[in-house]
Structures are given as C-alpha cells and as structure tokens.
C-alpha cells in the first residue's frame, strides 16, 4: 500500500522501527484510522442520530457544554487532522521529490496541522462560551 512506502521489513517480514524509515508516521496513520473510526462513529451518532432535524446553535451548545461531548469532538478533530494531513503527505511524497523537499513539506504540514487543531478547538469552544470552565 502506498502509505507503507518507507517501512522496512525484516527478513521475517515484520515492519521494523529503524530511524528514517517513516515507521512512526506509518503506524500512527493506522492508529489514528482506528481512533477516527471510533470517534467519528460516536460523533455521528451523538450529533445526527440522537437529535434529528435542522441543526441550531442551541442544540450544539447543549451538547458541547457537556465535557464528554466536548472531549469526543476534540479527539475527533485531533485524530482526523493528523490522519488527513499524514495521508496528504503520503500522496505528495509518492511524487518522489527528494529528501530536502520532503522534510520541508513535512514541516509545513505539521504547522498546518497544529494551526488547524488550535483553530478548531477555538471554534468548538465558541459553543461553550457561556460555560464556566472556559
């Protein structure tokens, strides 16, 4: 698979964590995939199935003010931002740009990712503006 481009295999066929092989990114892509599945399922259930009809500010406020829902949405944000940008990175790296450009692109994606999570957390917190724990 494309996202296993750098994972080196031992003679026994197991992926080995040698530095510089992209093993961490490869593993985290799978970990975040499973986590995304869990949190996305929770998010969709809680947001759309438990409460049908047009979404209004008040409905969202009622949910996000509760720490559990806030946690689920925050985790979803963090996990998906990582998984998505890591995937975009895999697509870009497969164009074979050379090591220096690869490092630069990875750095840019990290900046975008962290900015995205921070911005998203502020957006999420906007729904809980009136609650005391912010």
């Amino acid at each position, binding site marked *: *698979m*494309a996202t*296993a481009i750098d994972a080196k295999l031992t003679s026994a066929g197991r992926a080995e964590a040698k530095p510089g092989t992209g093993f961490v990114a490869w593993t985290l892509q*799978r970990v975040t*995939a*499973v986590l995304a*599945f869990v949190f*996305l399922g929770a998010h969709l259930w809680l947001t759309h199935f438990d409460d049908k009809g*047009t*979404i*209004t*500010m*008040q409905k*969202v*406020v009622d949910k996000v003010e509760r720490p559990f829902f806030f946690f689920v949405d925050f985790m979803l944000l963090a996990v*998906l*931002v990582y998984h*998505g*940008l890591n*995937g*975009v990175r895999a*697509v870009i790296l497969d164009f074979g740009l050379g090591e220096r450009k690869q490092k630069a692109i990875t750095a840019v994606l990290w900046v975008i990712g962290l900015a*995205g999570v921070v*911005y*998203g957390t*502020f*957006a*999420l917190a*906007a*729904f809980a503006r009136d609650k005391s724990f912010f």
Partner: protein
Amino acid sequence: MWVWLLHRASGLVLAFYGVVHLFVISTAMYSGASFNDVMDFFHEPVLVALELVLIAAVLFHTANGGRILLMDMGLGIRGQKRVFWGLLSAGIVLLAFMTWGLWGEIF
C-alpha cells in the same frame, strides 16, 4: 490498482471536506444567528444530496482502510478480494441506510 486510486481520491475529497467543515462550523465564533443561517443553508436538498456523496466517500475509505488494516496484520491476504467485497458490502448497506434516513430532506 483502482482500489488504491479510489482510496487516495476519496481520502483527498475527505481532506478537502474537512477543511470546509472546519470553516463552516467556525462561523459559530461570530454569532449564534450566523451559525443558524449557515445550518439552514445546508438543509437545501442539493446540499443534503451532496452529504450522501460525502457519506459514500467516508464508507468506501473506511471499508478499504479496514481491509488494509487486516492485511497489515497478516489477515486476509490470500482472500483479499473477498475481504474487499465483504467490507464494501457492509459499507453499501450503511450507505443505503443513510440514504433512507436522509430521503425526506432531499425530495
């Protein structure tokens, strides 16, 4: 090869959607009224239909991703095609369920 390509295509579509979703939801930072207006806009039938396309992309990407995860663990390598069609069928069932749920909002 096509499955790999579709996995990438659906991934990019979903990544793009993620960015859009982030900015749409963040309209709540301005005011509750602006957020409600935006939410009403997304209840237009055309946009609800587009949501089904989004759901299809999510389900395909998840089903194939599940297959990749199984294969990475060494399971289902020889029965790859069966695993793929099995997971995809589960995805299609879910898509049908979602379509049924959203039908009233489109037509």
